[in-house]
């Protein structure tokens, strides 16, 4: 990157957006979630983050500050077309950190932070959406603040610029109360979708944006190999006929088998092969190995 881009004297605002499945299509036949470019996009709170950045930049520019708004996304190539649209609303730069697969919030934040540090985007204000629409936890901004060593104000419901480089933020508290914060650089903030609606880009800007390029960063981070939780295999649930019985009590007795004689435990001493056979036999007798539903 060109160091002139760093805007050392001015204020760099970076809006972080997440490319997410907005309307996940769960295939009822296989139960798999299908991601498609056409049903993916950015959440309303991410749009609010971009709009907030643009408004702050506008306000501070009017007061004589040089402000640069950058939109940053850690996401796949599919996101590129939609990211380009941020040029049309007024972003100066759009940067994509290549990330093809789903990662934990901590890892995404690490990736984003690597692009935000002073030697890179040199962000004074990082503005995120409060939670992503694909069941996000809203923890990315918190991790970011930690990585960047910035203050944080998360889940904001209102933003107002004051003097250049400082702003009033409103946060919801329990019991219908509000908290007003005065924030100065450097800070990570996250906003709710209701804070602002992204402006509609003019036709000329939309046409011009088609020619712009999204900057691509490839960041090599050696993630530790993830170990999925291990647990014993459990046979899948079976469909059982509803218990017979005229009243609730007898049905419960029937269901739990409380008063019927239970099968006595047996201890078998066998070779491994025979033991395996016996286990399979017993499982089959209980109906676990049969995939077709019991009659």
């Amino acid at each position, binding site marked *: 990157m060109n160091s002139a881009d760093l805007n050392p004297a001015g204020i760099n605002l970076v809006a972080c957006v997440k490319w997410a499945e907005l*309307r996940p*299509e769960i295939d009822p036949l296989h139960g798999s979630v299908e991601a*498609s470019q*056409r*049903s993916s996009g950015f959440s309303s709170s991410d749009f609010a983050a971009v709009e907030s950045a643009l408004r702050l930049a506008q306000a501070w520019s009017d007061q004589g500050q040089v402000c640069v708004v950058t939109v940053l996304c850690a996401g796949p190539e599919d996101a590129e077309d939609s990211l380009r649209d941020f040029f049309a609303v007024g972003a100066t730069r759009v940067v994509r950190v290549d990330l093809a697969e789903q990662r934990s919030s901590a890892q995404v934040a690490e990736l984003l932070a690597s692009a935000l540090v002073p030697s890179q985007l040199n962000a004074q204000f990082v503005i995120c959406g409060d939670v992503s629409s694909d069941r996000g936890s809203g923890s990315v901004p918190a991790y970011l603040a930690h990585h960047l060593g910035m203050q944080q104000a998360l889940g904001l419901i209102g933003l107002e610029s004051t003097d250049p480089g400082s702003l009033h933020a409103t946060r919801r508290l329990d019991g219908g109360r509000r908290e007003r914060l005065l924030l100065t650089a450097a800070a990570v903030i996250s906003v709710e979708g209701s804070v602002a609606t992204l402006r*509609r880009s003019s036709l000329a800007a939309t046409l011009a944006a088609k020619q712009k390029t999204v900057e691509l960063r490839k960041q090599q981070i050696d993630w530790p190999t993830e170990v999925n939780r291990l647990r014993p295999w459990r046979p899948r649930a079976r469909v059982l006929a509803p218990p017979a019985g005229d009243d609730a009590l007898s049905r419960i007795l029937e269901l739990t088998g409380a008063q019927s004689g239970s099968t006595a435990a047996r201890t078998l001493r066998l070779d491994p092969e025979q033991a395996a056979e016996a286990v399979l036999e017993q499982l089959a007798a209980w109906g676990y190995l049969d995939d077709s539903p019991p009659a």
Partner: protein
Amino acid sequence: MSTDSYPEISFETRMSSVEFRVHERAHITVDSKICADCSTRGCITACPANLFVSTADGGILFNYELCFECGTCYMVCNEEGAISWSYPEGGHGVVFHSS
């Protein structure tokens, strides 16, 4: 085979299978005062999204949100000026995926 083996879904379930990116501006408005004089009420039967509802005072209650933007209503409408019809703001409204 009878209908029992293929239970018909409710209208709400039917409409919930469709994505609508609702814009805050109503792209269709209905002037209920004009509808009060309408005897045919074709919109109520023909609108595939079932968005026209009779009100007790003889008017029409209309909600624009879950609209296919098909044009049926203004074509079957009987009274000049009852329906003001336009497309929603670009990028909003119905979005099909598997049709």
